[in-house]
């Protein structure tokens, strides 16, 4: 299960000759940490990182805001047509991404958003999964609590902000992690809506690097290592909340 990680890191520290020796060695005979610098210098990875952090960060913020509001309305506000809205939300889960690829591209061109951050962020500014998860959390907050807060003088928005959201921390952490991850890992969409190298996101850059670095496998692995490391670190910090909320995400039915 974890072997590929080991192999990635180990190869990243070998030189080309050892990396492509057959049979391969399980432990580098010589350590070459300078591989990372070489790989880093071969493409504008700094720029890729900045772009990606910006895009994934804004995307995550947008997802948290839009899905918290929507989930709250779906869980706690009685409005006409609510069920229909909910079903419509769930139905979008069944739309394969490929169908929307061409039309969205055309739409973005028309909006003159091609090759901008807007194109990278806005279409992914909400998430049905997030709405669903948060709605489950909000529904599990007892109604009495809501009534008590109303008597205490809370408006709906205050209830959402001061009570519902703090009580849903695991879900929020999970959503933040997953949508940041989504932004971090995106390939197809940024590949299509950006044209210039300075708009590239990390994965597009990494995939381009693959052909740029040709057969220097040790550099592939070095680049793969430093592009994955931040996410893995973030995951280790968030995993407690994360597992808890996936486990409690109401998949009971």
């Amino acid at each position, binding site marked *: *299960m974890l072997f590929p*990680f080991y*192999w*990635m890191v180990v190869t990243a520290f070998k030189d080309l000759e050892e*990396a*492509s020796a*057959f*049979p391969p060695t399980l432990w580098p005979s010589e350590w070459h940490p300078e591989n990372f610098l070489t790989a880093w210098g071969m493409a504008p990875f700094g720029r890729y990182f900045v772009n990606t952090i910006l895009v994934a960060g804004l995307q995550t913020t947008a997802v948290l*805001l839009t*899905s918290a509001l*929507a989930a*709250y*309305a*779906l869980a706690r*506000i009685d*409005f*006409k*047509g609510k069920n229909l*809205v909910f079903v*419509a*939300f769930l139905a*979008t889960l*069944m*739309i*394969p*991404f*490929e*169908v929307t*690829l*061409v*039309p*969205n*591209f*055309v*739409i973005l061109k028309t909006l003159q958003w091609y090759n901008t951050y807007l194109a990278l962020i*806005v*279409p992914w500014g909400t998430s049905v999964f997030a*709405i669903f998860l948060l709605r489950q959390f909000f529904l599990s907050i007892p109604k009495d609590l809501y009534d008590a807060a109303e008597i205490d003088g809370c408006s709906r928005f205050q209830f959402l902000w001061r009570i519902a959201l703090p009580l849903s921390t695991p879900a929020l952490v999970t959503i933040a992690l997953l949508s940041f*991850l989504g932004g971090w*890992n995106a*390939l*197809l969409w940024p*590949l299509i809506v950006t044209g210039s190298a300075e708009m590239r996101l990390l*994965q597009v850059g*990494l*995939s381009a690097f693959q052909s740029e670095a040709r057969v220097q*496998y040790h550099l*592939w692995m070095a*680049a*793969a290592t430093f*592009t*994955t490391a931040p*996410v893995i670190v973030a995951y280790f910090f968030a*995993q407690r909340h994360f*597992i808890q909320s*996936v*486990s409690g995400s109401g*998949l*009971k*039915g």
Partner: protein
Amino acid sequence: MSLQSPVAAYAGTPWRLPKALRETALGYAYVLPAFAILLGFHFLPIFYAFYISLFNWRIRQGPFVGLENYQSAVSNPEFWESLKVTFYYALGVIPAHLVLSFLIAYALFQQIRGRGLYRVLYFLPYMTATVAAALVWRWIFHSQYGILNLALDKIAIGPQEWLLEPRGVVELVLGALGVAAPEWAAGPSLALLSVIIFTVWHGLGFGVVIMLAGLSNISGEVYDAARVDGAEGWALMRHITLPLLSPTLFFLVIVSTIGAFQSFNSIYIMTDPDHGGPLGTTRNATMYIFQNFFEYTRLGYASAVAFVLFVIVLALTIFQMRVLGPRVHYQ
């Protein structure tokens, strides 16, 4: 009271919309941002895709051609080939994903200690960007320097071409036994199988965590009651575990089907995207759409294929819900 003027009686109650209306307005205001995005970028584009597919749409909108794009898709063997690859891929990934994640989750569930740590570790691949992970696996599968071939060497199976191998796996296995497989029974290429193996590895953690959650939702008392009633071993699994886990299984089936049908990253990274892998044997529908759209700028044609795919996925999902849905036991 007598001193109270009519005005004072109403002083505390400013004019308001009727409650039901106010609630409705508030509800829509709250769902609006999410709704607008979903509608604008996910829902309406389906119709737009259909519209585009009726034109000879290159970089700009061209002449209306009716269903011509659909006709040329249907008569194009590459299109059928891509559908076949998509189905092979789904059939390879989904059962393996379900069975493996169930077995691992079940094993983890039996032992309490270290469960947390294992969950974290199994989830790790899922957390890793597909591009980076696929890069690593491409390296592992490498036909000349890959560590996999070294390992195979040790167990007396010759080195394989893996990601570069266009021949079907059935063909290869039978070939090794000295039997020639008929062309229709060749099976998915070894290259595609390699991608499938990668995908299963990459997604396993998700399945394990979800299954573990499902397993821990089954109350211990139900097990105890069943044991008192005389169920054990397979009977316990068959009559208690699986039925009570069925909502979880159902969810995973739906989610992984949709996921399998839109797989792109792994194929794009692990096999040569320009040629659809060795002899086009890893060019799935998504890749086919991407190529027509992005490389040949045949937007109309790409939309037609995408629309067909959409209909297939929709039909499949509805079919799954119809057939599997009623067998799900909700607690």
